[in-house]
């Protein structure tokens, strides 16, 4: 069971997670990324590359399913304007055992952050807006998975 979605609207993580627990495996893991209030940020705007986004997420999920023999995986990413406190991204994995589910979940979010075509812009209370800079630490985490 694989579900990959790019959406303009809000989504509910627990609802997305539920089908993963019915696949007969012994382990389900998930990660939810939430728009954070970083010193006066009121909303985050997510730009993406529509012609490429879905395919790049599909590729990541297919890689994770093959590498960790997952029973299922869910990957949902929001685009557009997201208020602080709302979820931006949801990753769910189901496997026979916990190590596979947890590692695949970490892999998916780490690789998404460095390879999927999304760009964040922070909107602040004073009306200013600023593109978020990519972090070297994210690159390092994303690359670690290639060397294992």
């Amino acid at each position, binding site marked *: 069971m694989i579900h990959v979605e790019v959406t303009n609207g809000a989504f509910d993580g627990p609802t997305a997670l539920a089908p993963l627990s019915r696949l007969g495996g012994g382990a389900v893991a998930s990660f939810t*990324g939430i728009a954070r209030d970083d010193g006066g940020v009121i909303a985050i705007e*997510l*730009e*993406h*590359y529509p*012609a*490429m986004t879905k*395919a*790049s997420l599909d590729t990541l999920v297919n890689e994770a399913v093959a590498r960790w023999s997952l029973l299922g995986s869910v990957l949902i*990413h929001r685009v557009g304007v997201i208020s602080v406190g709302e979820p*931006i*991204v949801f990753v769910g994995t189901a496997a026979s055992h916990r190590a596979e589910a947890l590692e695949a979940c970490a892999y998916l*979010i780490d690789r*998404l*952050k*460095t*390879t*999927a*075509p*999304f*760009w*964040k*812009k922070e909107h602040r209370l004073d009306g200013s807006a600023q*593109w*978020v*800079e*990519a972090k070297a630490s994210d*690159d390092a985490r994303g690359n670690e998975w290639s060397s294992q």
Partner: protein
Amino acid sequence: MKLVYFARVREAIGVDSEERDLPAEVQTVADCVIWLTAQGANYATAFSELPRLRFALDQQMVWEETLLEGASELAIFPPVTGG
């Protein structure tokens, strides 16, 4: 070739996409960036830091030395920041 831009690159250039007839000597992604840089101050601003640019050729991530070789769409953008 169709050129598409995202995030701060798109804002600096002022359009999100355009069609360009590239001269024959423009063979790689880097050649294209150098050629565009000479097309106007907005391009020079957008591409002022080559190491801070990322590229996708026909929706596949590529490096600056990649040959364009008949591809139909080149995307130029800053490092991604999703998740």
